[in-house]
């Protein structure tokens, strides 16, 4: 087969064109550029919102529908990006000119990694709530989304962990009370085990939930010590943390933690196992409040693969006093997620309108609050329980209300004070202690090493 070039010059010209064309294409494809996007109109346009949450796209669409009642000319497209893919997806998207206009941020590693691509929303918050805007929003939510004086995202809701949710029907069936100490917890688990029911389940293969349990145990050993260590004011290789890890190990050896926990993921494994009634207790936080309602519980059971199942009432309980020192293990929390406006957005004004409505308007926050997925951050807004239907209102209404009231007064951070290296070290420490390949003291020493290394890298 021949190529139809008559002369060497023609061939060279073609070659040069081809190379230039390919190089041009490559440049266009690869160039991220650092250009600032345009402001555009504040009341019209199309904006793209990317987030790992709401995990239920119906929830996001409900928010958008409510927003559109007030701003009908701003079209919002929500794209759910799985949390396991979020970092991998967002880095190239935000570096390009075709990324989202609005995106989710979480305190801690996400703020550190993606906060630089976001607008400083301090002035937006000020224009929405006035100069004293900080006093009108839950402070714990604002702190975690701020970095070097820049408000990288405005918080939609806050989330609190360190609590356990239990299947009230199973406890009633075996005439059990929620355990308040480690010994009671072991006895409860023995009763469940003797009846062929799983007791407590946790996805110990994933870092965040291990950290929740460790922080809850630590708060039982010495309240506030975890936060001090997170702030660098106390050591991780201390007797307190070694004791925390010893108790963590005890959960595995005494039959409280489910078998194979180190290979289980909180979502979907443990969540599905709890919702299908295989386990009586699960380590979940305030985001689990939504499953106290008839609608969300029914939807969740369907997602867990239980067709036609009858929703059962779930109730929150405080983490037991596992250290036996009489310390109540308080919850801890952060902004669940905040909405950031991408600096490169070509519709920044419309994006800011949406973010302001979601985070700083009573209407937006009321819609958020009523979903019970995340706790609204705007002070004065709380779930309207007249419109929310619990699975068992008489049983759940009181405890769930109290739980949310307690959560709103929490002032201890969950993830905001730790970077991803230390969080990774928590996973390694938790797993190595649980599997017996490290002693609690040895694992505590690795936590301090990770903290020292992170400090040296700053």
């Amino acid at each position, binding site marked *: *087969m*021949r*190529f139809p*070039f008559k002369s*060497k010059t023609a*061939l060279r010209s*073609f*070659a040069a064109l*081809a*190379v230039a064309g*390919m*190089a041009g294409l*490559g440049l266009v494809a690869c160039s991220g550029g*650092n250009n600032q996007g345009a402001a555009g109109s504040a009341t019209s346009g199309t904006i793209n919102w990317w987030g790992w949450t709401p995990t239920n796209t119906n929830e996001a669409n409900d928010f958008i529908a409510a927003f559109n009642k007030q701003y009908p000319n701003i079209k919002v497209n929500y794209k759910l990006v799985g949390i396991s893919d979020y*970092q*991998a997806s967002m*880095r190239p998207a*935000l*570096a390009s000119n075709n990324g989202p206009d609005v995106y989710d941020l979480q305190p801690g*590693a996400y703020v*550190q*990694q*993606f906060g*630089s*691509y976001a607008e400083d929303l301090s002035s937006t918050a000020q224009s929405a709530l006035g100069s004293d805007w900080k006093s009108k929003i839950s402070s714990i939510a604002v702190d975690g989304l701020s970095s070097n004086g820049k408000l990288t995202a405005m918080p939609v809701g806050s989330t609190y962990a360190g609590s356990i949710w239990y299947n009230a029907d199973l406890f009633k069936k075996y005439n059990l009370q929620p355990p308040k100490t480690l010994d009671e917890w072991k006895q409860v688990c023995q009763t469940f085990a003797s009846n062929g029911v799983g007791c407590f389940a946790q996805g*110990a*293969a*994933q870092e965040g939930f291990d950290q929740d349990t460790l922080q809850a145990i630590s708060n039982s050993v010495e309240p506030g010590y975890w936060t001090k260590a997170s702030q660098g004011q106390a050591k991780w290789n201390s007797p307190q943390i070694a004791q925390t890890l010893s108790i963590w190990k005890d959960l595995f050896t005494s039959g409280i933690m*489910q*078998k*194979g*926990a*180190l*290979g*289980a*993921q909180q979502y979907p*494994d443990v969540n599905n196992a709890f919702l299908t009634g*295989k386990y009586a207790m699960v380590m979940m936080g305030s985001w689990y409040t939504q499953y106290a309602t008839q609608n969300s519980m029914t939807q969740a059971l369907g997602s867990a693969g239980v067709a036609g199942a009858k929703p059962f009432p779930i109730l929150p309980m405080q983490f037991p006093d596992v250290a036996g020192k009489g310390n109540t293990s308080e919850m801890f929390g952060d902004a669940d997620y905040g909405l950031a406006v991408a600096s490169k957005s070509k519709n920044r004004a419309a994006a800011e309108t949406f973010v302001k409505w979601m985070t700083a308007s009573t209407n937006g926050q009321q819609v958020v609050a009523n979903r019970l997925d995340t706790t609204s951050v705007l002070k004065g807004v709380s779930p309207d329980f007249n419109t929310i239907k619990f699975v068992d209102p008489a049983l759940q209404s009181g405890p769930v209300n109290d739980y949310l009231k307690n959560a709103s007064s929490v002032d201890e951070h969950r993830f905001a004070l730790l970077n*991803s*290296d230390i969080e*990774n070290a928590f*996973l*390694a420490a938790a*797993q*190595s202690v*649980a*599997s017996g*390949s490290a002693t609690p003291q040895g694992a505590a020493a690795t936590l301090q090493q990770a903290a020292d290394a992170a400090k040296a*890298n700053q």
Partner: protein
Amino acid sequence: MTVSTSERLTRAVGSTSRPRGRRLQASGLPWILPALVLGVGLIYYCIGYTVYISGLNWDGASPDPLSVGFKNYLNISHDPVFWKAVWHTAIFFVVTFVVQTALGVIFAVIMHSRIKLAMLYKVIIFVPVVLAPAIMAPVFRQIFAANGQFNSVLSHLGLGFLAQPWIGQESTSLPVIMAITIWQWTGLTFVLYYAAMSQIDQTYIEAARIDGAGNLRVLWSIIWPNLRGTTVSLGILSAIGALKTFDVPWLVTIAGPNNSTQFLGTYIYQMTIQLAHVGYGAALSIILLVVALVMAIILQVVGREKADR
């Protein structure tokens, strides 16, 4: 070697019309140009860029990365997780290659024995090759969970004492990953051996039979030596596959528990994406590239030497 009439004619025509070099250039270069530009422009450029960022302390986003020279490589040499990943890769390669080879040869021999329903068996053996790991991973997570079907089967067989949380403990998680990989890729090994066996001259086997060789003797002394080329190719593919292993350990065990199923691919992902140590991840990637090249060259040379004997 004989030269065909058309080739002779082409050469004769070429010698009288134009200089031969120009003709080759005119007819060949434009065809390879797009691939050349893509290859050099994308692949080699990316390798060069990865080498560059492997000398940085960079999170992949900040505008002012810090140059650290060879520090990332030095740190890797002291990194216990890296050495764990290397060790897992080596074990993984040896076990999966040996088992897949043995099963592939056995299945191929059986299928050449004119058994009934051979086509059905071939399909069954090959189907795992075309199933995406992302689809199968949740299935295996379920099967090997503490209360999963594998333990259930063991209990029903009266082997309940062997039940384990297979993917929830360090001692059994890597064997599970290897078993899944063997299940997935034995079909390909089988197909290649099946095709290679079809190429063996039947007269060798008939001669061996006349000399009184039994089945095992024929397999060991006639068939197996004739499969050497296929085995070397599979060895190279397995070695590179082991170095690139990512999907199964990541989707089934998230490289855990406690790094017990950590591989170079998963560690690069963790470092680069999850922990934002892009420079460190790039250095790991370059090491992976060098190891893959060295391994491929060694296997090629070893295979060629044996074939030349």
